């Protein structure tokens, strides 16, 4: 109960903080328009050239799949890596470690709180813009989508936070975690279906997207396809498995990491 109240307070405070600083939402808006908009435009050109169906998938479905990837990215769960690495490098971690809160919970809440404001504003706006320009695919009105979309979205963010927190914790051992972060980030980007929608993946790559944690971090992109209804609960199971496995790993690694804390004094 206490943890929930604290989480609510941190998230609420950070949403207020974001409201005081509109620069972030402006930046997120332009990033969304630039990255997602350009991709949608490119795929539109490809569809105009190749026909209305590629690999049995319409442009409308592809566009929504890409859009869902970017809308989850607005929450910026990846930012937790840098936040933790900075806390470790600068020693600021000590400011949280002497408070009655678990450091990782605090970082989870702050990352969610920082991204939520942009998400609450841009997600409905983006949804509306997409619905008005492209319409809503029939797959998004099925029971399977309506029932599972929130669960999958929640697990995408939870798993991303956990995996990226784990990368951040590596800063206790590594001087520079950027190369590791970069590799993971690119795997998520490719296997998550951001630039190349999962519908176009060759079979091996598709299997990798399904079974690897990198793909599982972006299962939200699968929810708009026809095949989703049949696979939904299996994929949620895979997401749950990775979330629990990495969650446990994170706790163990963080426990070890705490013993390595060193601080600069005066």
């Amino acid at each position, binding site marked *: 109960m*206490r943890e929930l*109240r*604290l989480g609510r*307070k*941190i998230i609420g*405070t950070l949403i*207020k*903080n974001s409201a*005081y*600083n509109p620069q972030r939402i402006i930046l997120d808006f332009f990033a969304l328009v630039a990255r997602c908009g350009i991709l949608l435009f490119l795929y539109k050109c490809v569809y105009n050239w190749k026909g209305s169906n590629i690999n049995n998938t319409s442009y409308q479905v592809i566009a929504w799949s890409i859009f869902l990837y970017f809308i989850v990215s607005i929450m910026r769960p990846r930012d937790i890596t840098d936040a933790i690495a900075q806390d470790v490098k600068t*020693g*600021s971690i*000590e*400011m949280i*470690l*002497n*408070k*009655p*809160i678990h450091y990782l919970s605090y970082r989870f809440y702050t990352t969610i709180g920082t991204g939520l404001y942009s998400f609450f504003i841009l997600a409905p706006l983006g949804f509306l813009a997409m619905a008005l320009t492209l319409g809503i695919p029939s797959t998004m009105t099925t029971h399977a989508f309506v029932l599972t979309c929130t669960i999958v979205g929640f697990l995408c963010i939870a798993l991303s936070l956990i995996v990226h927190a784990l990368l951040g914790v590596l800063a206790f051992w590594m001087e520079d975690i950027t190369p590791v972060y970069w590799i993971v980030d690119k795997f998520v980007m490719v296997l998550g279906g951001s630039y190349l929608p999962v519908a176009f993946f060759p079979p091996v790559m598709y299997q990798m997207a399904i079974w690897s944690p990198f793909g599982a971090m972006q299962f939200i992109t699968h929810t708009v396809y026809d095949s989703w209804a049949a696979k939904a609960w299996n994929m949620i199971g895979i997401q749950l498995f990775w979330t629990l496995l990495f969650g446990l790993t994170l706790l163990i690694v963080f426990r070890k990491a*705490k*013993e390595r*804390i*060193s*601080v*600069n*004094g*005066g």
Partner: protein
Amino acid sequence: MTNSITVKNLTKRFEFSVKDPKAGWLKNLFAPTKNQVTAVDNISFSVACGERVAFIGPNGAGKSTTIKMLTGILFPTSGEMSVLGLDPSTDRKKLAYKIGTVFGQRSQLLPNLPLTDSLEFFGVMYDMSDALIKERIAELVEIFDLKEFVNQPVRKLSLGQRMRGELAASLMHRPEIVFLDEPTIGLDVVAKKALRDLLLRINKTQGTTIFLTSHDVGDIETLCERTIVVNHGQIIKDLPTNELTKTFVNEKYIDLMAKETFESFPNLPTGLRYAEQGKDKLTIAVDLKKLNVQAALKQLLDLFEVEDINVYNTELEAVIRHIYEKAKI
């Protein structure tokens, strides 16, 4: 009087890898040479409830490491410690409810939001009810005179205002001990005095134990009744602050004010040396191991025509400098 802090044979060693330029990259990556630094070396001390203690020493002496072990941030390599009856390394969360921390070089406040938001935030973190949070904020605003800036974003506050805010935030949950690591760093004289007055006030009115590290002599002189001096991770001295001068420096200073002007500066007898030479004023240092004040005065009056004399002890700052320099050798 019961102890709020008890430390027995506390040691902290840091281990770090060192790149060996002669070894290959594989060895450096997987089996690097390890070096060890003993930051805190088998120290023992205790602090009574309500006491105001300065924990001082030169850079790298082990002050911050000790504070960070006492607050549960660092784990000791060996030894025992008890803070308010709890072991900081195993009861960190429980202990956090009972202690407050101010680290002068870091901020715990939310930079973009008004100070009230940070105070509310800490209230929730310390599990206080909404009514209690409101009441405590009003109390802290009154005590710390925060009214004029409590609604301003923290990033727009002056350093002095921010430090008052930091202290208020650390006292939100009425801690029994406050650990302060260089709390007045960067503050001007007015802000320093205000902060010290506030600390004295909470110590007097609420019996809060104060455990402070600082390089600022004023903090030690005005705030702390007891001083623990550390160097190379060991306690060199643990004594009442007002005895520091007597213990460490066997020197007194004599100011001589010229009747007209001092024209020549003759060689001084053994035990005396010029600390400052001016035409209107001379400052002479007296080595008390070689000469007492009376003999010194007698010899100086034979040498100089003076209108006024002032005899005084070494300033605490010089004492501390002396301790640090001696420790380096």
